[in-house]
C-alpha cells in the first residue's frame, strides 16, 4: 500500500471526506432562509462539481505538467457524452458499458487530434486544438445530425433497441443505472430546518472523482510525470538527454482526453442527453479557466477551480431581481432600488461579470490560483500558531 506517499494519502483522504460530506457542506443554510439561495447541495450541481473536477484533473495532466495549452478539450467531453448516450440507446441503461465506450472513443479521438496538433507547440498548438474542436462542434451541430441529433441533442427514446435491456413495460423512459441502482435515486434527510440530499448518481461521480484523483497523483509522482514536467521547462535538454518528447506529450494528451471522455460519459449517465454546445469553444475555455483559477500544475487546484466556476454559474445566475428585492425589501424603496440595480449587474445574467472580476483578481494577486491562496493562509496560520507556541512555552518555563 505504499503506492502513494503519506502526504498524498492525506490529500486524497481529505478529498474523500469532502466528497462524502458534500451534501452537508454545500447546504449550510436552512431551507426557508433567504440565504438558501446560496445552497449548492442538490444532486445536479453536486454531480457537476464532481464531473467537472474529473475534467479539470485530466486537463491539468496535459496543461499543468507539459504546459501544452489545449483549447479543444470540450470536444472530448462531447464525444464521451455522445458515445455514452449511444450505448444507452443500443445496449442498456447500465452506465458501465457507456463509460467504457466514452473513454475509449475519447481516447481514440484525442489520439487523432493530438497526433496532428502536437506537430506544433505554443500558440500554434492551441490554435490547432481550437480549430479541431470547433470543427467537431460544427460537425455535431449539423453534418453529423444522424449521429448527434444536431441542435436538439441526442436523447434516449422509448423506441430505442436497447438489446440487453428487459422489455420496457412501464411505458416510461428508462433511467440510467449501475446494476439496478438508479442514478436519480435520492435519499432526502430533514434535520430541523435543513434539508440534505444524498443522491446515488452524485456518489457514483464522487467515486470516479476519487479514482481520477488517485490516478492523477500516481501520474504526478511517476517517472512519466517527471518527464512531462521536464517537457514544460526545457524540451531541448530533454531531446539531448535521449528522450523522444513527442510520444510523451501525445500520451499526456490522450490520457487527458480520456479523462474528458469519462467526464462526458458521466455527464450523460447522470442525464442521458448529449448536446453539441458541450463541444463549443466557450466550453473548452471554461476548462482552461478552471485549471488556472484553481492552480495550474497542482493536484488539488483544478478540482477547486471547477467547483468555484460551477458554483458561480449555477448559483449567481439564479439570483434574479425578484430575489434581490426580497433581500432588500426592508430598506426604504429608493435605496432598495439603487442597491438592486447595482447588484443586478453582478447576478442573474451578470454572473459572467462577477466571475470575470474574480478571475482577474485571482490571477493578479494569486498567480498560483486558489491553491496559492490556501497555502498563504496555511503559512500565516502556522506562523501565528508558531508564535502562540513560543509564547505558551515561555510562560510554562516561567511557571516552573
Amino acid at each position, binding site marked *: 500500500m505504499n*503506492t*502513494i*506517499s503519506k502526504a498524498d494519502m492525506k490529500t486524497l483522504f481529505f478529498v474523500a471526506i469532502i466528497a462524502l460530506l458534500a451534501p452537508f457542506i454545500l447546504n449550510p443554510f436552512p431551507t426557508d432562509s433567504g440565504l438558501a439561495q446560496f445552497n449548492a447541495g442538490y444532486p445536479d450541481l453536486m454531480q457537476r462539481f464532481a464531473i467537472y473536477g474529473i475534467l479539470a484533473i485530466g486537463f491539468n495532466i496535459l496543461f499543468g505538467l507539459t504546459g501544452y495549452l489545449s483549447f479543444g478539450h470540450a470536444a472530448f467531453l462531447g464525444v464521451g457524452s455522445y458515445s455514452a448516450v449511444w450505448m444507452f440507446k443500443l445496449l442498456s441503461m447500465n452506465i458501465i458499458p457507456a463509460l467504457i465506450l466514452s473513454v475509449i472513443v475519447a481516447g481514440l479521438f484525442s489520439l487523432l487530434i493530438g497526433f496532428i496538433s502536437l506537430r506544433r507547440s505554443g500558440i500554434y498548438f492551441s490554435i490547432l486544438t481550437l480549430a479541431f474542436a470547433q470543427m467537431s462542434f460544427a460537425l455535431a451541430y449539423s453534418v453529423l445530425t444522424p449521429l448527434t441529433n444536431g441542435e436538439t441533442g441526442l436523447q434516449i427514446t422509448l423506441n430505442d433497441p436497447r438489446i440487453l435491456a428487459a422489455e420496457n413495460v412501464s411505458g416510461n423512459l428508462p433511467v440510467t443505472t449501475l446494476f439496478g441502482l438508479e442514478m436519480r435515486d435520492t435519499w432526502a434527510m430533514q434535520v430541523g430546518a435543513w434539508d440534505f440530499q444524498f443522491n446515488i448518481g452524485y456518489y457514483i461521480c464522487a467515486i470516479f472523482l476519487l479514482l481520477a484523483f488517485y490516478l492523477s497523483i*500516481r*501520474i504526478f*509522482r*511517476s*517517472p*512519466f*510525470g*517527471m*518527464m512531462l*514536467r*521536464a517537457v*514544460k*521547462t*526545457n524540451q*531541448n*535538454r*530533454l*531531446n*539531448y*538527454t*535521449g*528522450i*523522444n*518528447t513527442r*510520444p*510523451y506529450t501525445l*500520451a499526456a494528451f490522450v*490520457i487527458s482526453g480520456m479523462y474528458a471522455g469519462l467526464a462526458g460519459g458521466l455527464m450523460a449517465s447522470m442525464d442521458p442527453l448529449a448536446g453539441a454546445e458541450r463541444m463549443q469553444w466557450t466550453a473548452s475555455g471554461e476548462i482552461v479557466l478552471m485549471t488556472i483559477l484553481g492552480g495550474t500544475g497542482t493536484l488539488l487546484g483544478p478540482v477547486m477551480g471547477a467547483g468555484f466556476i460551477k458554483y458561480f454559474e449555477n448559483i449567481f445566475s439564479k439570483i434574479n431581481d425578484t430575489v434581490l428585492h426580497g433581500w432588500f425589501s426592508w430598506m426604504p424603496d429608493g435605496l432598495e432600488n439603487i442597491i438592486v440595480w447595482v447588484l443586478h449587474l453582478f447576478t442573474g445574467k451578470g454572473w459572467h461579470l462577477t466571475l470575470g472580476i474574480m478571475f482577474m483578481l485571482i490571477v493578479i494577486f494569486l498567480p498560483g490560483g486558489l491553491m496559492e491562496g490556501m497555502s498563504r493562509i496555511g503559512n500565516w496560520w502556522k506562523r501565528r500558531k508558531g508564535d502562540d507556541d513560543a509564547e505558551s512555552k515561555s510562560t510554562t518555563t516561567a511557571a516552573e
Partner: protein
Amino acid sequence: MGILEVQNVNKSFGGLKALHNVNLDIEEGKIHAIIGPNGAGKSTLLNCFVGKLTPDTGTVMFDGHSLLGIKPYEINQLGVSRVFQTPEIFSELSVWENTLIPCFAKRDGSFTLNALSRVSDNKDMAEKAEKMLVDVDLINKKDMLASSMSRGDKRRLEMAMCLSQNPKLLLLDEPTAGMARADTESTIELLKSIQKKLKITMAIIEHDMGVVFSLAQKISVLAQGTVIVEDIPENIKGHPKVKEAYLGEAQVEGNMRDD
C-alpha cells in the same frame, strides 16, 4: 580509427562559411580539445554532432553510425551527451530531478509509459543520481530549484546530468566559462578522474589554456571554419600558425580569455 570521424564537413549560414572542409578524428578514450578564436566555428561543429545542425556536405560517423539525419534523442541514445555553452538544464525542476531524468532516460530508453511507479521507488536511479551529485559537490543543494543556482553550479549540474548517462562520447562546450578559479580547478580534477576511471571519450571546447593543456591529449585548432593544426599539446604551444590565428588577441601561452 577514432570513435568520432568527421570528414569534409561544410556548413554555411547564408553567405557566411562557418565550417570549411573540416576533418576531425577523435580517438576513443582520449580527451580532445578544440580551440580557436571566437567565431571560429567551434560550437557550430559540436552542433553538427548532436543533430542540432545538419552539415551542408560531409559525413559524421560515430561508433559505426552516421549521425546525420537522425534526431537528437537518437544520437544521445547512441551514447553522445553534450554540455552546452549556455547551460541547458530543467530550470523549473529541482537539482535532484535534473539529475534523475538523464538516469531514467538511460535506463528506460527514449520513451516508456512508466506512469504508475513512483520516482522514489526506483532505488537504482536514486543511487546513481546521488553518487553523481556527490561527485560534482552539489549534493547539499539537491532540493534547490535549478534556476536559483549560480552559473557555475548550473554548469556542474549539467555536467553531472551528462556524466550520469555514462556516455561513450562527452561533448563539452566551454565547461569552465563563468566559473570561479576554485571551481575551475575542481572541474578539471573531476574530468580527469572521470576520464581515468571510466575512460569516457571527451571533446572539449575551451578558452582557458591552462585547462586545455592540463586536460587534453590532443588539440585541434580551428580558425575561420578550418582546422589549421591538429597535434599533441606540446607541439601546439608556440606553433606559428596558431599564433597567427590568435593574432591581435592574447598569446597562446597566456590565458586566452576573450570574453
